């Protein structure tokens, strides 16, 4: 059975911090930068955004699974995927899975989804990978990392890209790691990481894929030999489904999720990939997005792929992973997605001090964990409204109202409602203020009353400047972390200018 990608989407936070500022210098407009998850964002909020973008125009009821990959899950014990499924209003019997612990997690989740669909145990699975890793302030890793999320809808029908093969291997190496309870990622000496980890790992994964693909045509590739690929000298690989970078024609796109520009260049060289075949790894714009990096590059490749083109994707992490896709005729027909390009075009320069506050790199006067925070029982009772962002429609008078309540605000009917998801609707700003008093890393807080098809919701407004505020402004909705009182992330929705 042919399986592949049915839809895709991405999310990249708007805030960008200049790499020069992170290195202790002044920010230069137009210089290299990285994407930064802001104080109200984390891997879960970015995943909900990417997932929503991917599912735009698709029936959410049709999803059998949600596989979520990250190395920065907000909880060590408590599933991110179940939370994301609730925010995306997926079916109650959706199969949720968290993948974690490795930079390969995004590729692993994608492979698991492709396998599940191929095996017939699921018709459609949403794969989301999202990461917001922290490098120690002032470190090279801090400048290298970038935050973002990618979502891929995997299915067996109506694919925009069909899977041609995948391969992965596991390896034991201590080169990049973060221990339990630690905030910052560590790395061993840079040259060790490069020479024994990333570049050979990517090359080995691609080689393994080519061997699998070529096997059908009698290709013989020796395992453990990087040299055979690097020179592109082995004519036996020429028929590896058209995925050999060394034999590349104009129809092959090579997406290498190597963690930095140097290892990316070295991996490309080892594979003999022509410069024009390489998918831009977005260093200096987005940054190394961890477990989301390879899926983000796949989304980026899909955005610009023409039918008939092939995409070779390879990523690294405790071993390596490679996949080959062929783009179908449907790719040209898929409604434009909010993917990598869409998000990279929408940026906001953030200064260094605000970045430090937003990422809680400053020592606060009071620890957020000092208060017991949000009541778990209140959260439990209100999760349909606060996480699922569902209003209720009165069956008696048809009025939509938020939050769900027992007696209708309009006709006073009792207990006669059905829940309606409003997270994917468009609202309209009724009135607003700018609150300078409310404690936040970046005052003032824009807040307004939003009319959503008759329901009125008092909520915070993001992605706009004071001069953008006007009554009637169309708004859409974004899942965000409201605060971390109690030492836990406490999520709800905010509104932002629609279509922007």
């Amino acid at each position, binding site marked *: 059975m042919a399986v592949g990608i049915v839809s895709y989407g991405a999310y990249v936070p708007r805030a960008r911090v200049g790499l020069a500022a992170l290195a202790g210098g002044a920010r230069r407009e137009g210089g290299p930068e990285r994407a930064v998850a802001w104080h109200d964002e984390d891997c879960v909020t970015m995943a909900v955004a990417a997932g929503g973008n991917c599912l735009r125009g698709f029936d959410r009821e049709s999803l059998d699974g949600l596989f979520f990959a990250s190395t920065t899950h907000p909880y060590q014990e408590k599933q991110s995927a179940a939370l994301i499924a609730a925010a995306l209003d997926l079916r109650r019997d959706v199969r949720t899975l968290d993948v974690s612990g490795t930079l390969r997690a995004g590729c692993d989740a994608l492979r698991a989804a492709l396998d599940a669909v191929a095996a017939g145990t699921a018709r459609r699975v949403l794969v989301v990978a999202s990461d917001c890793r922290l490098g120690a302030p002032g470190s090279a890793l801090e400048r290298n990392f970038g935050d973002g999320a990618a979502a891929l809808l995997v299915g067996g029908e109506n694919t925009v890209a069909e899977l041609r093969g995948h391969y992965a291997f596991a390896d034991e190496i201590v080169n990049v790691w973060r221990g339990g309870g630690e905030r910052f990622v560590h790395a061993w000496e840079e040259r060790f990481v490069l020479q024994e980890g990333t570049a050979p790992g990517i090359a080995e994964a691609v080689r393994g894929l080519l061997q699998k693909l070529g096997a059908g045509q009698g290709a013989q590739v020796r395992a453990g030999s990087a040299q055979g690929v690097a020179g592109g000298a082995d004519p036996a690989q020429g028929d590896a489904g058209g995925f050999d970078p060394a034999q590349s024609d104009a129809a092959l796109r090579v997406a290498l999720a190597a963690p930095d520009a140097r290892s990316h260049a070295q991996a490309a060289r080892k594979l003999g990939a022509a410069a024009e075949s390489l998918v831009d790894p977005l260093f200096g714009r987005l940054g190394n997005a961890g477990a989301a990096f390879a899926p983000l590059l796949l989304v980026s490749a899909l955005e610009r792929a023409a039918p008939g083109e092939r995409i070779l994707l390879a990523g690294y992490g405790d071993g390596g992973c490679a996949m080959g896709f062929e783009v179908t005729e449907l790719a040209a027909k898929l409604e434009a997605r909010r993917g990598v390009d869409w998000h990279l075009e929408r940026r906001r320069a953030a200064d260094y001090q605000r970045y430090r506050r937003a990422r809680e790199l400053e020592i606060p006067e009071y620890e957020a964990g000092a208060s017991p925070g949000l009541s778990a029982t209140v959260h439990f009772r209100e999760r349909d409204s606060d996480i699922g962002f569902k209003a209720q429609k009165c069956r008696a008078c048809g009025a939509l109202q938020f939050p769900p309540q027992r007696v209708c605000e309009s006709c006073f009917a009792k207990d006669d409602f059905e829940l309606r998801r409003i997270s994917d609707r468009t609202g309209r700003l*009724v*009135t607003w203020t700018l609150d300078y008093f409310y404690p936040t890393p970046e005052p003032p807080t824009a807040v307004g009353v939003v009319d959503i098809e008759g329901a*009125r919701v008092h909520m915070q407004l993001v992605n706009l400047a004071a001069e953008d505020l006007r009554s009637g402004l169309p708004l859409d909705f974004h899942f965000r972390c409201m605060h971390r009182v109690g030492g836990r992330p406490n999520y709800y929705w905010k509104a932002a200018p629609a279509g922007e």
Partner: protein
Amino acid sequence: MKKDALRDKVAVVGVGCCRFGENWGQSAADMIVDAAYEAYADAGIESPQRQVDAVFTGSIYSNKGPHECSDALKLFGKPVTMVSNYCATGTDAFRCAALSIAAGLHDTVLVVGYDKPKDRGVAGPSVMMDRVRDLPQTPAGWFALCASTYFEKFGAGREDLAKIAVKNHHNGTLAPNSFLKREISIADALNARMISWPFGLYDCAAQTDGAAAAILTRSDLAPQFRDDFVLLKGAVVIAGPNPQKDPGNDFLSWKPTGWAAKEVYEQAGISDPMRQIDVAQLHDCFTLTELLSYEDLGFIEKGAAKEHIAAGSFELKGDLPVNTDGGLKAFGHPTGATGVRMIYENVLQLQGRAGARQVPAAEFALSHNIGGHPTACGIAILGRR
């Protein structure tokens, strides 16, 4: 249903009010004793344990229940009721006391409104983070929600709000027990740091500690206490929807005020409030709240506030002086005390005891509280005997 069932049944025969401010050295009980004993003296009560039949008290910061008040005053063996209704608490406690007298249950009742917010260690209201929805939950943010809509429709702006702050600061300098006794200029108000647009610091009431008290009795018994007693003409507290989720809200007025005004005018027999009411204490938690209340109380047409502010209609020498003691803005706003402090000021005005801020020959005085998001409005109308 008799709309005038309360009218002239209840008299106010004594009032008291402690100095409002940052009363670092006083407990809630200390302030309650100050206010209540001043009211006892004002009513000529020498043995409150014998002469007071019941107590109605109101506070929103206290979590000690009615006992805090009864223990401070050593009023035991009689009913003590604690009322809590956001910023309308004081007016609601006063109303409940009046109802108990009108019902014939009690003869003489003590009302005490108080609050002690300055023991919390923060300036301004507490920041509530126990939920995720409806944040920020700041009063300035709630009450500012009528600004963009009102300004757009009626062309008013921050300068009009500033004139209200300047007026109330001026009036505050004339009240002995007020917190702020400092004149400010329009420029001071406009240039102050922003709290929640369009409210700068001077658009916001001064949160203080304080307590105020009143002695109410059956009007036929009032002459036993003093000759110039004041009569209750009407008192209402009305609940409204949360304006933030009320589907029909146009954010040009706060609905409960309009509803409460209609009700209380019927009770008191008022048909032309601008002409018939001589002095008013309005809930100026923020300058815009006072502006909207001019209109929502029917003093003037909706949208006419800007021209009336320019004409000085609500200044001390205007047609209808508003917040003669400085209001919440300058006298101070200990939440539960505020409604009772307004009764105190209106009684002094009606009795000609308001000193430098006296409104000449006042016959009817109105006090108004608005509470919650806002979700409640309380109004009381007093008249000269």
